[in-house]
């Protein structure tokens, strides 16, 4: 049977992709950020940890979806997904290869569990999806595993509540565990942490909030899942709302987790950056 073996979090900011592309990932500014990923890069490259499939939770940044179609939760069921042209040409990274059998299986299970998923059979994936792949897998000719992109609307209000995201994660875990093939599946929650990209309050960073969020995500998701949007907005900045996506990852790991690794860094361009590696615990 398939099982959820681990959950990771990562920032997905385009500046990380740009640093790789321009060869500046080792300079004084970006070096500490990229070194913060080294532990997970080594861990995930080991056979026993390498996922067969990643369910990659991210938000589309006005790339695959415009103002005409705004799905709250979508799931990529295609054979493959091309990197989107976001205004400066597509990121020069491999196509993202999907796992349509598992993706459709998860989609069906989620719909039966009353999550009204939007099924995507054709979709380009933007930096939200490809930057975390680059950060954890480096620059291979092909990504080392299959990826099921799962975009969440966190742009047009209201986005889903933290509680809804957590429950979606729980349902993803059940769906994965009912898939007959023997697969190691990881769920990644991307985006965050505190940041605001707009208005006179742009540049907001809240380390206290972020560290408390990480602590609660690990040890007390039952409380964290009920935090209302207004608290994210006030404390983590208007774009800090992306953190609800981490709750999807957390819900998919079960009630208790073991923390394998944690990295927190300020600043990565406009954002605070958080990397976590968690495993389900008995």
């Amino acid at each position: 049977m398939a099982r959820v073996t681990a959950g990771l979090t990562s920032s997905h900011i385009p500046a990380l992709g740009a640093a790789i592309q321009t060869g500046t990932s080792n300079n004084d500014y970006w070096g500490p950020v990229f070194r913060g990923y080294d532990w997970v890069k080594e861990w995930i490259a080991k056979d026993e940890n390498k996922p067969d499939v990643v369910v990659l939770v991210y938000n589309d940044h006005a790339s695959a979806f415009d103002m005409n179609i705004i799905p709250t939760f979508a799931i990529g069921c295609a054979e493959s997904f091309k990197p989107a042209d976001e205004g400066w040409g597509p990121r020069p990274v491999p196509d993202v290869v999907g796992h349509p059998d598992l993706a459709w299986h998860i989609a069906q299970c989620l719909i039966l569990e009353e999550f009204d998923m939007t099924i995507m059979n054709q979709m380009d994936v933007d930096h939200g999806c490809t930057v975390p792949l680059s950060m954890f897998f480096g620059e291979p000719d092909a990504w080392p595993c299959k990826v099921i992109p799962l975009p969440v609307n966190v742009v047009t209000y209201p986005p889903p509540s933290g509680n809804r995201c957590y429950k979606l994660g729980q349902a993803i875990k059940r769906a994965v565990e009912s898939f007959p093939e023997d697969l190691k599946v990881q769920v990644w929650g991307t985006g965050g942490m505190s940041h605001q990209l707009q208005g006179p309050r742009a540049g907001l960073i809240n380390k206290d909030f972020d560290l408390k969020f990480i602590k609660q995500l690990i040890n007390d998701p039952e409380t964290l899942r009920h935090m209302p949007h207004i608290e994210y907005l006030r404390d983590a900045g208007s774009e800090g709302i992306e953190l609800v996506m981490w709750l999807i990852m957390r819900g998919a790991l079960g009630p208790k987790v073991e923390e394998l690794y944690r990295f927190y860094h300020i600043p990565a361009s406009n954002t605070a950056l958080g990397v976590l590696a968690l495993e389900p615990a008995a």
Partner: protein
Amino acid sequence: MSDHKDIDVHSYLAEFDDIPGTRVFTAKRARKGYWLNQFAMSLMKAENRERFKADERAYLDEWDMTEAAKLAVLARDYNAMIDEGGNVYFLSKLFSTDGKSFQFAAGSMTGMTQEEYAEMMLKGGRSPDGVRSIKGGY
């Protein structure tokens, strides 16, 4: 047992206006900025970027945008674009077309120079103290 919860959408939305220097992308803003955001989306295509760069005003006139939105685009006034219902992720197609970064665009909305903004970020960013709530002053 019912899962129904009493949600008051009016108070949910009203709270957003209490955050200083922040315009949450609500349905109202999404409706107002529909064409501005769709214009920005169009810049994902290389041929549209070329046409826009060749004659910005003529390209903008192809869109059913308010004059205020067009002037905000021409002036690259990102606060004014957001007032017209623009969303920063859509507007990113515009500053990407200009070869500018998110940090440039975000900084331009704060009234700081790009250097001052970058320096603030290096020092740990803007503190949330005093800018969480207008009414509460915390």
